């Protein structure tokens, strides 16, 4: 009997759901399965595409296709003069999504905001630990140094929230636009806790975003429907489907065959085919990333800037980029930050190719041998560390420096590479999190990052003073000036060889409109439409 009932229920669900097939559906061929749908607990771009950017919203948002901050759930905010207190005013009447597993009885309020952050650090919060999900690590919350900077979150009234910091930290606002800062429903959490179904919070998400979750067939298909109550207005597409397609060639074939409308990350080898097809458009943008090679600036003779400059000059960067990125292309990096980021100084240039000059300096410095590090992983900012190492090795040989290539598997590679006494030149790179220059300068080259992510073990007092001051200043124009000065020092000191900012691609069918490449590497479907 029970079986018959289940069958009947399933049949009913199927007939209801299959009715949706006639609606306007956009299919996105995503590159991997999401770990789960709670953006506080995950770290991958594909996790965020499937959760925070579809189902959830944040207090502040990144402008679609940019890194500027704009209002989200908070209509406006004030920052106190000392830069320590942020007061957010919430948009009134924001509804959480109504689904077959949750019916909200109240609108979004300050409790939801406080809960969304409290659960990520407060060990007393039942949602912080094993009671919710086993082995939670809250990687982004800790990774963005939130525990260090956040003193407390407070509810002032239903529509006002106050954030107090331990010290001024201008990038905080950008942090609050990041995926981990998505606002979840406290009412839904309370209900699940009462029902003893806390794990459902990560598999059946409820948010205030443009799309609401319908179904996930593990490793195959994720289905969403437009949120009819979305506070910025209902989306034009009715249904959004993520068809999980890990193989890049298969993904592109699916777009060409019309089985999906948008697909990210084509293989460089397929770019010519895509460009030749008249039904699809190849979209590209300089990624918010940098590929570079860190010299350990504490070990002689690499402690001398002129030696580092000479090593840079010895590398034929143009040929290197062409060989590594091929048809996909990349923007040669003049600066640590990419040109799409505010404060980028167009007048700062990195070392030009000059092997004769390099040879003189290196001979004088007595540099005969050097370690050159490479790993096995394909990264957006460097598709082939090993190939890069071989080419650099050949260039350096021409100026009389014998490079020995050191290989490690990716995680071990970084573990060894970040050690203070690691010798030689270490290839690495970075993809930005929040579009704030601090996320590049301080994360990669602050003195406090030595042993963590400052692979050059470089600690320059002038540079450090500038980036720390910029971190504490709220005014963006003023911050911009400070970062411009920091870029001049970086170019003069050359703690690293700067390679390139890679291009990021997506393939979109021509009947799709409103899709934008995003410098943060996310794929958003709000504002996207499709002609039948």
């Amino acid at each position, binding site marked *: 009997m029970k079986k018959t009932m289940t069958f009947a229920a399933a049949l009913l669900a199927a007939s209801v759901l299959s009715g949706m097939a006639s609606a306007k559906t956009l299919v996105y061929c995503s590159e991997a*399965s999401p770990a789960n749908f709670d953006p506080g607990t995950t770290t*991958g771009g594909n996790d965020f595409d499937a959760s925070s950017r579809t189902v959830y919203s944040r207090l502040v948002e990144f402008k679609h296709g940019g890194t500027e901050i704009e209002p989200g759930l908070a209509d406006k905010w004030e920052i106190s003069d000392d830069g320590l207190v942020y007061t957010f005013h919430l948009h009134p009447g924001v509804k959480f999504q109504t689904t077959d597993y949750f019916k909200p009885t109240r609108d979004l309020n300050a409790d939801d905001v406080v809960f969304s952050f409290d659960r990520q650090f407060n060990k007393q919060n039942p949602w912080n630990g094993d009671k919710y*999900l086993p*082995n939670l690590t809250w990687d982004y919350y800790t990774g963005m140094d939130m525990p260090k900077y956040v003193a407390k979150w407070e509810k002032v009234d239903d529509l006002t929230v106050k954030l107090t910091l331990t010290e001024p930290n201008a990038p905080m606002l950008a942090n609050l636009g990041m995926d981990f800062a998505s606002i979840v429903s406290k009412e839904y959490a309370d209900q699940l806790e009462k029902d003893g179904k806390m794990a459902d919070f990560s598999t059946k998400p409820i948010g205030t975003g443009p799309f609401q979750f319908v179904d996930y067939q593990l*490793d195959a298909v994720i289905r969403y429907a437009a949120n009819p109550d979305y506070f910025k207005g209902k989306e034009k597409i009715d249904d959004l489907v993520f068809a999980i397609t*890990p193989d890049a060639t298969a993904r592109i*074939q*699916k777009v060409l*065959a019309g089985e999906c409308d948008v697909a990210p990350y084509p293989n460089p080898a397929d770019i010519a085919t895509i460009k030749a097809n008249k039904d699809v458009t190849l979209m590209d943008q300089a990624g918010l990333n940098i590929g570079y090679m860190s010299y350990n600036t504490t070990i002689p003779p690499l402690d001398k800037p002129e030696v580092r400059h000479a090593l840079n000059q010895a590398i034929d960067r143009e040929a290197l980029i062409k060989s590594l990125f091929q048809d996909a292309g990349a923007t040669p990096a003049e600066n640590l930050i990419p040109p799409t980021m505010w404060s980028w100084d167009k007048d700062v240039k990195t070392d030009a190719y000059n092997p004769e000059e390099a040879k003189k300096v290196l001979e004088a410095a007595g540099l005969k041998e050097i370690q050159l590090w490479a790993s096995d992983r394909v990264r957006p900012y460097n598709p082939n560390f090993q190939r890069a190492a071989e080419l650099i090795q050949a260039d350096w040989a021409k100026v009389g420096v014998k490079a020995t290539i050191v290989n490690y598997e990716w995680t071990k590679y970084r573990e060894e590479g970040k050690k203070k006494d690691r010798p030689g030149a270490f290839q690495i790179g970075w993809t930005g999190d929040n579009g704030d220059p601090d996320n590049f300068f301080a994360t990669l080259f602050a003195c406090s990052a030595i042993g963590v992510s400052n692979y050059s073990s470089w600690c320059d007092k002038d540079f450090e003073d500038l980036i720390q001051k910029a971190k504490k200043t709220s005014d963006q124009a003023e911050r911009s000036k400070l970062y411009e000065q920091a870029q001049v020092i970086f170019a003069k000191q050359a703690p690293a060889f700067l390679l390139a900012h890679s291009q990021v691609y997506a393939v979109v069918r021509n009947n799709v409109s409103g899709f934008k490449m995003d410098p943060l590497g996310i794929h958003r479907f709000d504002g996207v439409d499709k002609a039948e």
Partner: protein
Amino acid sequence: MLRYLLNKIALLIPTLVGITICAFAFVRLLPGDPILAMAGEHGVAPARYEELKQQFGYNLPIWEQYARYVGEVATGDFGVSISSKRPVLEEFKTLFPATLELSFFAMVFAMVIGIPAGIFAAVKRGSWFDQSLMGTALVGYSMPIFWWGLLLIIFFSGYLGWTPVSGRIGLQFFFKPITGFMTIDSLLYGKWDAFRSALSHLVLPAIVLGTIPLAVIARQTRSAMLEVLGEDYVRTARAKGLSGARVIGVHALRNALIPVVTTIGLQVGTLLAGAILTETIFAWPGIGKWMVDSIFKRDYVVVQSGLLLIALIVMAVNLIVDVLYAVINPRIRAA
């Protein structure tokens, strides 16, 4: 017969212990630290690293980690995925029907083509057909699955547009799984167009996955058939004046099939190994793709429990084949 069965089962116990050790050791021999893998590009501060190591139990001595693991597995607890935080067994149960369905159709493809081809080659021994079939079988056996899969997609789905590129069923079809087998579920819901869509999605991956077993089965059938065709009783049957088709179809084939059945059983391991690549190319949501993802994520728990579960299935199938073989061929039981 019972004694034979018990004997076989007793032999499985040391194999099982060996597999737990292999699965456990294998993931730990993989280079890379799971905690660093989880932290991504950010890296993790040393204090936090130690804290996490403790949280995951990686600070314990290796034998203690193993003892814990065996204890949990013995009570049916296969652990919780580090990345998705879902129970491994639950994910396995959700994904396994997809792999089973694909493997079944791959096997059907391999048998439907492989057995008749093998018979025909044996009967026409030395002919151009035989020569070219055996040559093709060798090529099929050595075919790199990844390359073969992409080639078929580009030609049949991209160029001709005959088959869907990847996935299990057209995205317009959406129903809650009953059995987890798309072909069966679509029929249970009475949706013929969904059934057709599921079949069309099966064509390419089944061919890709079935290619190696097809080559093996065709060669095995041919050699078994050649052997049988030389036997006295076949000659007798011919001497009696039976038609060629009857001699081959009834007298020869039945006996030739015995080693072929064993071969088919042994192909299960090959199928599951092939499924890892096939599923990744065709975005087929089965356990092969799941394992690959987990290896990249350094999800120790999924990899070691997944390996164990797959090994258990291969062992179970081999046991069934052994038993079936004993049923078909009574001489084996005494041995």
